[in-house]
């Protein structure tokens, strides 16, 4: 269709050009004829030509709209008219007979060969009839030949028609040759493209990673390099042979290879692409697994089968391995699950046991707390007990003043003093009363000091004078130090007031001072030194026996004691430690066996300030 269209366009083009060109030359001829009429007179022929020229002009004007055949026939008609009019006037001398030559060349390109031949015969016939007419004298010769060939018009006419004819031939020839050359180029390019494609496909075929085999009529027809490698053979081994030659007798599913192959090929040929696994044998007899896609292809009107093969032996091996692994894993998971379940059961059991144990522990802890409280209480009682004797003495002594004073007063009133002057008795009475007052004062003092120890509840905080507390403790311990131990007090120049629990602070210093006193077997010195440098520091230093190096790290442990049984349960320093911690302070101990001991209690003033602010 396309070729026909192109040809049509070419023809149309030629015809249109011919019309335009013919009209120009026709007009020249017509003008020459018109001028010639002034010499030879206007006649019928000129009338015909004029009509033809008008028609010609119209056709040229409408040339794009008119059909090709119509235009061709019109050109033929025009040429015929021109020729006939010329022949009628000039006979043999007519120039337009050259058109007869134009006809076959021109028309044969445009019209069919046979029609062109018919037209040529027709033209020849017309020319022959006129010739016969002139020769036989039927048509009178009105033109003097000698005169005509010497006229410029005749030459111009001839020239225009010859040129027109020649140009027409040249143009048509040129048009066709150019078209041909162009077409040839296209054909060559197309041929080249085709070759390239073939090469490309061939490369693809040869270099495919998959083995490709072409079968024709169920026999091997073509195979790429890969396929040959796969089968371990050359082309001749395969060519023209059936797949039976590259297969074992039976496939893994038990089917006979030959039967199954025929069946698969049949299905593929029927247009149903086949994808399957196949066991093949190499030329050396080795068996391998392949996955094959089999598809029918049509080439050059012949039916082929294309088989694409992949060696899946390795893959199959891996699959088998994977399956083995999976099974193994499943077994493992199963086993672990069972183990976990068992463990879980055990855990649940242990958990129950643990809860039970925890409850028991909680109970024990509760009991322990109670026991601890009792112990702390008993330690307090012990320390108080230790002191009681001394305190009793400290009270009994001044009480003795009062008792003795009373006896004294009674004696003064009795006969005992008959020998004494009244004035002397008055003096004695005064002395007795003073002594009794002294007794009362001393008792009050000691009772006050004692009261400090349990004055406050445990969480009660108030301003406490460190010096006051130490003095109270020393007072209670006076009987222990009296005549035996020198107590040196080196107090800071100002009163040291801290926020604290008064009872606990008393307990703290009483414990430390008591220890210091107890550490001195006979005579010695206890030095109490207070300083203040952001923190209140109380140093209690004794000249006693000191503490063994191997126990110094344990002295703050509860129930640790070096004293004889009955002197307390060993909570004294543990209580000291807790009281100091409660007051955000610290306690340092420095001692060596035989060199006395120094306890330093540090209570931060910042803590004190914070509490005062509150």
């Amino acid at each position, binding site marked *: 269709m396309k070729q026909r269209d192109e040809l049509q366009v070419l023809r149309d083009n030629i015809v249109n050009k011919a019309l335009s060109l013919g009209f120009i030359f026709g007009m020249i001829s017509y003008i020459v004829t018109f001028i010639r009429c002034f010499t030879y007179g206007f006649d019928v022929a000129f009338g015909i030509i004029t009509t033809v020229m008008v028609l010609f002009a119209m056709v040229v004007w409408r040339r794009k709209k008119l059909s090709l055949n119509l235009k061709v026939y019109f050109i033929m008609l025009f040429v015929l008219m021109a020729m006939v009019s010329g022949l009628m006037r000039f006979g043999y001398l007519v120039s337009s007979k050259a058109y007869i030559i134009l006809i076959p060349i021109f028309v044969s390109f445009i019209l069919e060969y046979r029609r062109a031949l018919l037209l040529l015969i027709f033209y020849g016939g017309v020319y022959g009839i006129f010739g016969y007419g002139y020769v036989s004298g039927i048509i009178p010769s009105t033109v003097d030949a000698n005169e005509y060939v010497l006229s410029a018009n005749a030459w111009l006419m001839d020239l225009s028609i010859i040129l027109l004819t020649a140009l027409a031939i040249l143009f048509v020839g040129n048009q066709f040759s150019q078209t041909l050359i162009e077409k040839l180029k296209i054909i060559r390019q197309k041929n080249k493209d085709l070759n390239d494609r073939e090469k490309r496909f061939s490369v693809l075929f040869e270099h495919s990673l998959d083995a490709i085999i072409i079968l024709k009529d169920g026999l091997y027809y073509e195979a790429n390099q890969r396929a040959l490698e796969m089968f371990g053979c050359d082309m001749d081994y395969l060519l023209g042979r059936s797949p039976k030659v590259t297969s074992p007798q039976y496939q893994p599913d038990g089917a006979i290879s030959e039967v199954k192959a025929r069946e698969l090929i049949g299905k593929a040929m029927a247009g149903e692409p086949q994808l399957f696994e196949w066991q093949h044998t190499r030329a050396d007899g080795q068996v391998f697994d392949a996955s094959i896609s089999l598809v029918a292809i049509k080439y050059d009107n012949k039916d082929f089968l294309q088989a694409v093969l992949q060696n899946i032996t390795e893959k199959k091996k891996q699959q088998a391995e994977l399956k083995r692994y999976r099974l193994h894993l499943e077994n493992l998971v199963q086993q672990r699950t069972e183990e976990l379940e068992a463990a879980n059961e055990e855990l649940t059991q242990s958990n129950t046991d643990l809860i039970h144990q925890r409850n028991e522990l909680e109970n024990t802890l509760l009991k322990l707390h109670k026991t601890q409280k009792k112990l702390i209480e008993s330690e307090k009682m012990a320390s108080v007990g230790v002191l009681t*004797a001394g305190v*009793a*003495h*400290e*009270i*009994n*002594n001044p*009480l*003795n*003043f*009062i*008792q*003795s*004073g009373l*006896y*004294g007063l*009674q*004696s*003064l009133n*009795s*006969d*005992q*003093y*008959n*020998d*004494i002057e009244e004035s002397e008795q008055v003096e*004695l009475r005064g*002395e*007795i009363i003073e*002594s009794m007052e*002294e*007794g009362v004062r001393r008792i009050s003092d000691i009772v006050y000091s004692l009261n400090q120890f349990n004055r406050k509840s445990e969480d009660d905080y108030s301003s406490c004078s460190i010096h006051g507390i130490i003095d109270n403790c020393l007072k209670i311990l006076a*009987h222990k130090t*009296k*005549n035996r131990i020198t107590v040196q007090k080196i107090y800071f120049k100002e009163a040291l007031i801290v926020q604290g629990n008064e009872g606990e602070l008393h307990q703290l210093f009483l414990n430390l001072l008591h220890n210091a006193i107890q550490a001195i077997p006979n005579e010695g010195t206890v030095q109490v030194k207070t300083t203040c440098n952001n923190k209140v520091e109380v140093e209690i230093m004794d000249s006693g026996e000191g503490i063994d190096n191997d126990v110094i790290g344990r002295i703050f442990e509860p129930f640790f004691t070096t004293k004889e049984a009955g002197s307390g349960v060993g909570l004294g320093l543990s209580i000291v430690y807790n009281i100091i911690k409660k007051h955000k302070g610290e306690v340092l101990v420095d001692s060596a066996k035989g060199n006395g001991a120094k306890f330093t209690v540090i209570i931060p003033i910042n803590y004190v300030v914070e509490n005062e602010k509150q």
Partner: protein
Amino acid sequence: MKSNDTIIYVDDEAINLKLFSIMFHGIYEVLTFESPQMALEELKVCPEVKAVITDMKMPVMNGLQFVELAREINNTIPYFLLSGYGLTREINEALKNESLNGYFQKPFRKELIILELSKYI
């Protein structure tokens, strides 16, 4: 018991000594000493002392130590302890082995002393 017997009272507390003297004025001739040493000296030079009463807690030596030393000087008279302390193990022992003839607890009763002393004087 009209004739006033001489007794010695040792106590480091002066008030005790003074009041003791006052209450027994006209009953005993009381020699009081603040220190045991001085009392020992007196014992050496004054054989007419009929009894010795001493405090327990004193500087240099306690009452029992004093009695021990005093017995070396004069072992024929009775020795009594007048103490603010309760009975201790060592006092009990002294009472048992009769190095001590009696024990009075402060505050003491006047009649009890007269009664006890009367056993020996």
